[in-house]
């Protein structure tokens, strides 16, 4: 444990950028946890007397078209955005990894079927596929999460398949089998735990991407219902105000979105350093 800690300290010491990412993550988690209690205003309450006010002491990030406090909306949106990203990524991680692990482990027709499925998804223009899924299944957050999860599936399936293949050949499994364990048990106890760490890196990188994807869908009007604050929607709403000079409406949620994605991406790098110093990229 202490050696792990020392290792972590070394990695962070080596790489100040990772430290920055950890800091950002903590800020983000705090915002997600405390968002609604530290928000200075009710994020949904309109106050049309004070609409479109630039950032000021009373409204640090300014107000939007309906006089709602942008700081409060950005803060409160954190939880939902994190939830969308985490939901989508964990879904594709669980399903993708399971499918990929089965493909890699059992080979033969299982592998062929699963590989064909992932090939099919990969061949789609992914963003349009996500759009079509949300449009077809219904315009709500649940389907945005589902669509994002589906377009991420192939990455996990492929990765898990490759990792499991490597581990299988490395002999863990043979050994487990010889000692009388069933194939599935060997998969669960020996292969998956070993393949997990490199996949976690992917998870972190993917969180950011999932967020951007959801924001893109919001931009074209798919996803969260108004008046629920969500970063992508906030940017999309603000976009039409940029040219008339009300830059703050799009800028602050855009920055929040960017910082979050930024944080996840850097965190992925940091994780990779922790797991495998040689594969640092």
């Amino acid at each position, binding site marked *: 444990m202490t050696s792990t800690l020392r290792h972590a300290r070394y990695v962070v010491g080596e790489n100040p950028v990772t430290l920055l990412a950890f800091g950002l993550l903590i800020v983000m988690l705090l915002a997600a946890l405390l968002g609604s209690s530290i928000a200075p205003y009710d994020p949904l309450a*309109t106050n*049309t007397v004070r609409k479109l006010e630039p950032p000021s002491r009373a409204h640090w990030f300014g107000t939007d078209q*309906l*006089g709602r406090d942008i700081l409060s909306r950005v803060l409160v949106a954190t939880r939902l955005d994190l939830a969308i990203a985490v939901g989508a990524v964990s879904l594709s991680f669980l399903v993708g990894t399971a499918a990929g692990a089965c493909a890699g482990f059992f080979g033969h027709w299982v592998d062929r079927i699963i590989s064909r499925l992932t090939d099919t998804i990969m061949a789609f223009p992914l963003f349009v596929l996500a759009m079509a899924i949300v449009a077809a299944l219904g*315009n709500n957050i649940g389907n945005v999460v589902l669509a994002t999860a589906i377009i991420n599936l192939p990455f996990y399936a492929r990765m898990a398949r490759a990792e499991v293949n490597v581990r299988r050949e490395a002999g863990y499994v043979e050994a487990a089998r010889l000692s009388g364990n069933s194939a599935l048990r060997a998969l669960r106890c020996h292969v998956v735990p070993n393949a997990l760490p490199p996949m976690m890196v992917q998870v972190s990188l993917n969180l950011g991407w999932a967020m951007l994807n959801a924001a893109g869908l919001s931009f074209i*009007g798919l996803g969260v219902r108004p*008046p629920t604050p969500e970063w992508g929607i906030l940017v999309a709403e603000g976009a*039409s*105000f*940029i040219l008339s000079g009300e830059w703050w409406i799009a800028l602050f949620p855009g920055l929040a979105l960017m910082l979050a994605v930024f944080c996840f991406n850097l965190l992925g790098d940091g994780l990779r350093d922790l797991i495998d110093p040689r594969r640092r990229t």
Partner: protein
Amino acid sequence: MRIARLLVTLFVVGGLAGHAAAQGRSDTLIVVTESGPNSMDIHGVGTNRPAYQASWNIYDRLMTFGVKTLPDGSRMYDYQSLKPELAESWQMAADGTSVTFKLRKDARFHDGTPVSAKDVKWSFDRAVTVGGFPTFQMKAGSLEKPEQFEVVDDTTFRVKFLRKDRFTMPDLAVPVPVIIHSELAKKHATAQDPWALEWLKTNVAASGAYKLESWKPGMETIYVRNEDWKSGPLPKIRRVIVREVPSAGNRRAMLERGDADVSFDLPPKDFSEMAKAGKVAVVSHPVENAHAYVGMNVTKPPFNNAKARQAVAYAIPYETIYSTALFGRGTLVTGNLIAVNTFGYDAKASPYRTDLAKAKQLMAEAGYPSGFETTLSFDMGFATTNEPMAVLLQESLAQIGIKTTINKIPGSNWRNMLLKKEMPLYINAFGGWLNFPEYFFFWNYHSQNAVFNTMSYQNPAMDKLIDAARFETDPKKYAEEVRGFLKLALDDVPRVAVYQPNLDVAMQKTIKGYQYWFHRQLDYRQLAKD
């Protein structure tokens, strides 16, 4: 920054600055629009609104409307005066059962073929036969059967009336009854497609003031003046480039930077700011016979209860919506169903205003003292104004106990949803071409239950009043009937009109001659550039 500048300079090398060149050409008009035409044939299936603009400028009709100047100096079409276009004159039959048109002898199609009465007949036959929108619109003027249209000789054409209908003559000057080069079109007709709908969708067989120079759907449409046009004064603009720029922000930027000359369809906020800034001219007309409204489905609880509907009408934050969602572009009507520039307008007709105490009391009377839950839907395609309006409405309704979930519906599904008539509470808009109150009520409140009667409102008393007004000849009785159905609609309040929209257009100050048309499309023929 310096590197960026260098890069930009590099890319500018060799290219003359685009907008400088564009401005230098005073006879070229650059129009930017959200979307362009999907067809050149106004009779086709699924023809969109921008296609009306194309059709209006490329094709001629027999007649057109005159122009009148309003007190504020702006110009609009004059419903009272019909002017010749392809027809140089017309004569009502003494018995009032037909009208005879004399066509211009010098009128030519774009390929040089003279326009003849058989072209007119073929075109009108087509309009009343192909079904869908053109047939529907012809019917609005009691133009229903090919037998009504008669070729007298090459340049004489007669329309027989089915019944006495004051909409018949004006209906011949709306965009639908265009005159098509029938010989050319028939060459491309097939057994399955006798009206050459396929061919005319992408090809032009017209005699109008502009020729189609090039058309790249989704990108741009370019028109060039027909130098041989005789159906009116030769237009000043030689070439019109209509560019599709989906982002409203970009359209505004282009106008303000002088890269475009004219744009419709911008968010109200942009119009309001551009009008204030004064760099470009913003011309506004209240759209005739139109309003945006909050509709309620009267067939199902809770909105089958008139008190509950009245409660909603008292809970709508009219002023706030007007100033915040609309930025004051338009006219606040607080429930009034007859538009300000339509016959029968009465500023005091509507009892409604924002009064939450009264709304709460009505809720209690309706039997919903603790409120209810419902969904509030709107068309995502109009989210710019609809979404803030929905949010404000949601907030206000919550105060009288109505908890709403907002449902944004994609444009492709919106019509479907309207047709199904299942949405309990929604925001929608209506505008009629013909500026008569009974026309409006016939489509929106009559129990024939047209798609525009989105509330499924059915009331025999209402039907009786509307039907009476439609064919009323006595002006006094007519006014009474109009007052009658208005009062009934206000009492029953299946829908609450919130505002009458504006038709705003922003253009360079050098653009002259713009006039408002009921079809709300740009008429290139009247414009000039200083």
